[in-house]
Each structure stands twice: as structure tokens, then as C-alpha cells.
């Protein structure tokens, strides 16, 4: 854990961020809810690489098994009106290994229009997401980028204006954290741009 603190501390210093021993992100996205109170520890806050305001930190929780992630959190305030929820999760990622109930809220629909995207990710939205808007946002260039550029294991969750990029890592290095920040910032920029159009 000392290594993790040192990594985030030096990352914060190198990028002009405020180093935090912990940051209570709250229950903003499904992954943060899985983690209970969404506590990032350690964390760094400020203008993260990729030039967006946000917080980057380490998220760990135990739910039968222990799960560890590096996460970058930023906001896209105007997005809820166009895309309340969009989850683009690396194929095969597990965030829990228990399921108790036979009925669940009908809360998501898989987006399967892009084979290239679906080879790497499971993409889901609200069952009533406007498909035309999503088609424009997931442009061929953006799909190419998502399929090839982000760090391995990268996933993102957009929920009601909060965007959480994440990679599964026990002990990340500065290069990995920076790549996560840049990928998250790129996704944020793409969604923001489409919302403005």
C-alpha cells in the first residue's frame, strides 16, 4: 500500500494535482456502487492529463473476491439529456461474483451495431436510448480509437453526467495512470462534443 501511495503522490506532483489520501466519490456509477461508498484511496485531484478536471485514484473492494481498479472520474454536465447512461465495459470484466435475485429492473440494453467495438467491449445503454444520437456519437473514427488506443482493460461508465474510466490494476505505475487519464479525457471530449452538436 505504501507503494501505491508513493505512486499517486509522485503522479500528483508531476502533473500539478492535489494529492489526497482519500476521495469520497460517492455512488455515481455502477462500479462505484459496487465498491460501497465509492471511496478512492489514494487519489489526486485537479486538471488531469488529457486536459479535463477530474479525480484519479485507486478503488478497491471485496465482494466475495477482492477487486482493484485505477479509476479516473470527470463530469460531462450536459450529457444526461442526450445519454443518461452509457456503459462500455471490457469484455469478460467481472465486478462481482454473486447474484441473488431472479428479477431485476429492466435498466439496460446491449448496443451490438459495431462488431469491432463488441469484440473488445460490452456496450449497454438505457433500453430507451435514442439510437440515432448514439450512432453519431459512436462514429467510425471513435470506434476505431476505442478498439485500439485505450489501455488494455480500459472501460468507462457514463451515468447522469459522471464519467468514470477504469482499468483493473493492483499496483499501477505512473505511465498506466496517465494513459487512463488521457483515455478518459478523450471519451469525455467526444461525448461533450456530440452533446454540443
Amino acid at each position, binding site marked *: 500500500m505504501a507503494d501505491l501511495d508513493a505512486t499517486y503522490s509522485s503522479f500528483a506532483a508531476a502533473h500539478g494535482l492535489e494529492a489526497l489520501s482519500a476521495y469520497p466519490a460517492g*455512488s455515481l*456509477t455502477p462500479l462505484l456502487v459496487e465498491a460501497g461508498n465509492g471511496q478512492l484511496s489514494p487519489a489526486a485531484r485537479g486538471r488531469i492529463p488529457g486536459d479535463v478536471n477530474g479525480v484519479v485514484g485507486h478503488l478497491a473492494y471485496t465482494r466475495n473476491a477482492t477487486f482493484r481498479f485505477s479509476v479516473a472520474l470527470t463530469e460531462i454536465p450536459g450529457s444526461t439529456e442526450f445519454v*443518461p447512461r452509457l456503459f462500455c465495459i471490457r469484455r469478460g470484466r467481472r465486478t462481482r461474483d454473486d447474484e441473488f435475485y*431472479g428479477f431485476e*429492473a429492466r435498466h439496460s440494453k446491449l448496443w451490438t451495431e459495431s462488431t469491432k467495438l463488441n469484440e473488445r467491449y460490452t456496450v449497454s445503454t*438505457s433500453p430507451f436510448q435514442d439510437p440515432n444520437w448514439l450512432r453519431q456519437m459512436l462514429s467510425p473514427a471513435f470506434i476505431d480509437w476505442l478498439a485500439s488506443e485505450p489501455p488494455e482493460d480500459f472501460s468507462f461508465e457514463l451515468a*447522469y453526467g459522471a464519467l468514470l474510466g477504469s482499468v483493473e490494476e493492483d499496483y499501477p505505475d505512473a505511465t498506466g495512470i496517465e494513459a487512463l487519464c488521457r483515455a478518459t479525457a478523450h471519451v469525455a471530449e467526444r461525448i461533450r462534443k456530440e452533446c454540443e452538436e
Partner: protein
Amino acid sequence: MQLNRTGIGLIAFFGLIGLGMVVAPIPGEAGWILKSIGVIWFLVAGGLYFFARGQKRKAAHQDWVFQNGIRGRATIVKAGSNATVNEMPLMKLTLDLDVPGQNPRQISKRQVMPVFAAMRMEPGIVLPVYVNPQDPDDLVLVW
């Protein structure tokens, strides 16, 4: 609500094992006890099955409203929850509706949501909404 893999497994388990108990050729009092339990299990499975069918029909109707409805905006005025269903909050939302061709109005809507969604339902959030052209009270909220 919709049935998931666990639900399908539960219905199959209670239905098949219940049926097995009913038809098992066990004589005497033990046989009757087993048959009684089997009937209860089978009825539970049947109840879950019909509930799932009803939910599927409701989902199909919501899909129709989504595809054929008038798109508008719903602004959350008030949101709260006093109950949960399978650990998911049953939210009561008060919404200001702004739908083209209709007078602005306020409605209440109850919706079961996952925790992360329920916690984000705050006054001021604007969500898309689709309204049945033939029935202004029939609407789908995109949450």
C-alpha cells in the same frame, strides 16, 4: 422488472422439483407430505412464470411507446424512496413534463431503479421522455 438467469433457474428448479415431488410414487403419509410440498413449489414456480410473462408484455408495450411516442423532456422536481424491491429502490419521482404539442404539466411516476441510478435522481436533472400519442398519461421515462 425482467427475469434474469437466476430467475429462470429458480423457476426451473421449483417447477421441476415440485412436479417431481407430486408424481413421485411414495406411499403413505410421507408421500402426501411430499406431494403437498411439491404442489406449493409448483405453484410458486407458476406464479413467478406468470409474473415474468406480465412483465414481458409490459416491456413490449414500453418499447412500442418508445418507438412511436412523442419525445419530450422531463425535469425532476422531487425524488424519494420509501421501499426497495430486491435491494433496488422503488423511486417516486415528481416530474415537470415538457412535450411538444401538449400543455406543460406535472406528473408522478414510480420506478424501480438500481442504486446508482436512484442516487442520481435529484431535482433539476433533465431526462428524455416518450409519450404515447393516443394517451398522454402513458409514457416512458429514459432514466
